[in-house]
């Protein structure tokens, strides 16, 4: 079933703003940005602030994680500049830190949601005058913002380490950022969707573990010798083409677009499930 509510929710904001707030000299793009800003502000103002700033558990967990990531980032930057480490060292660290941040922040959020469900305050959230769709998107957005905050220290390492390499390293750093951000969106949408739609922490743990374990399956298959040989033979002539594609704007758009599309699909399924639930208790 197509969720009319979600589409109307988005259209309502856009059309209403386009008709009522259009000022001379404002382009469609600026109106669109303004509308996106309106939606984000309305949802963010309360739900995101509630999870990111008001909730002590989430706030403290994030502060600890930011501290840990920043400390590692500081060490890596110092090593990079003092011992002139090759670029792939800090890049590898940055990639791992970014991916870690993208996965950890939504999981912390999922734990907070489950705690709220267990103590009963999630009922209060659902009983407040906010549509289920907004509550859902606000919570996902809060997870994404949490990932971003956690992602910054790791990414800062990549940016700082690329400075001595000059302009040549810029595409690689951008690629890293785009892919890490897209993966954050995927993991935030998946983890929060599951956390909002299930009331069992055990089920949540199993599903999240399965979600993160599944991508390892093809990686393990690739490691088997026969497949590796075939893949090597297949890719070798095109290796530079693939590398160039990944580093090009087109390739990045393709990967990021694919990941964002995947997270949108998860969100679409998630909001359908959440808004059609028969019980929020």
């Amino acid at each position, binding site marked *: 079933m197509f969720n009319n509510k979600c589409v109307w929710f988005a259209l309502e904001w856009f059309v209403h703003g386009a008709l009522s707030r259009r000022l001379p000299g404002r382009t469609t793009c600026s109106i669109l940005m303004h509308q996106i800003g309106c939606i984000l502000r309305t949802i963010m103002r*309360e739900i995101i602030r509630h999870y990111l700033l*008001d909730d*002590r*558990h989430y706030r403290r967990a994030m502060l600890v994680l930011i501290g840990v990531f920043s400390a590692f980032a500081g060490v890596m930057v110092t090593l990079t500049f003092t011992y002139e480490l090759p670029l792939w060292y800090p890049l590898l660290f940055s990639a791992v830190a970014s991916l870690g941040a993208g996965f950890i922040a939504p999981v912390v959020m999922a734990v907070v949601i489950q705690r709220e469900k267990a103590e009963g*305050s999630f009922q*209060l959230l*659902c*009983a*407040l005058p906010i549509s289920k769709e907004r509550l859902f998107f606000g919570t996902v957005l809060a997870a994404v913002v949490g990932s971003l905050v956690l992602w910054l220290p790791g990414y800062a390492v990549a940016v700082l380490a690329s400075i001595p390499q000059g302009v040549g390293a810029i595409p690689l750093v951008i690629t890293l950022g785009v892919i890490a951000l897209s993966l954050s969106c995927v993991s935030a949408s998946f983890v929060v969707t599951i956390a909002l739609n299930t009331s069992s922490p055990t089920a949540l743990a199993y599903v999240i573990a399965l979600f993160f374990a599944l991508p390892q399956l093809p990686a393990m298959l690739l490691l088997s010798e026969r497949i590796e040989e075939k893949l090597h033979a297949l890719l070798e002539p095109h290796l530079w083409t693939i590398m160039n594609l990944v580093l090009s704007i087109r390739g990045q758009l393709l990967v990021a677009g694919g990941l964002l599309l995947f997270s949108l699909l998860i969100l679409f399924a998630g909001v359908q499930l959440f808004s059609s639930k028969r019980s929020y*208790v």
Partner: protein
Amino acid sequence: MSETPALEIEQMEKRYGEFSLRVNVTVRSGEVLGVVGPNGSGKTTLIRCLLGLVKPERGRIRFFGLDLERHEVAIKRRVGFILEGAPLFRRVRAGDVLRFCAGFYPHWDWDMVRSWMHQFQLDGSKEVAELSKGMRAQLGLIVAFGSRPDLLLLDEPTAGLDPGTRRWFVELARGALADFGPAILLTSHIMADVEDLADRIAFLRQGELLLVESKERLCQNWRRIRGRCRARPRLDSNEWVAIEYEAICGEIHLVTSCWQEGLLDRLWEAGVTEVTVQRLSLEEIYSYVMRPPS
């Protein structure tokens, strides 16, 4: 006062396994309806259905003439509530809970909220988990009343509170009724809680609304009659809620829910003498209504 009822529940049914809650009731604007019933009678399920936390299998719920399914957000902006056990965000500061809730209501009255916070000596910088049970209940009430709602849904607001805090709750609710006159649907398994506030009382047992009656009519219609007779008299069972006859001393105790002078004549004809008639307290009426049918 508006003619449109604050709340209309038409043929609502919610099932949980073998348990089935069936409710058909209206709350007029400015009226206080007390729903009483023992634990497990469906009071909390009723409030959850009204707040959209659980969806009933059938029936229609309208607030201020608006359908709950279609206008959920618009309705909830005009409805204050307390959930069972007042579950507030335990790891959030009291002041932040109020600020968070205020963001969803267009008519949030910060002046009133601040004055109550001051009056109750509630520390906004403390986390909800650090507050005492009474203070949490007070905070829950401030959240419910802070938006100056047109309708309040209160699920066991005084459960587990000491008599002083209960008294305080009644005074607060009376003050709100005098100030902005909301309709109130109040559930409790303690008759005394609703006795002070309710205009009408609904008796709920095992998911069924047995009786919905105004407090005045309950007091007028229910009587206990004591008398004496030599043998168990033959009486119309439709007129009597309870008939207890003690053959040894020849005493008879009767309870009726449709009191009228004519009943005395019929008792006289049946051979009952030395008749005395007493009014029943709401607590006693509750115990008779909740008696399982013999």
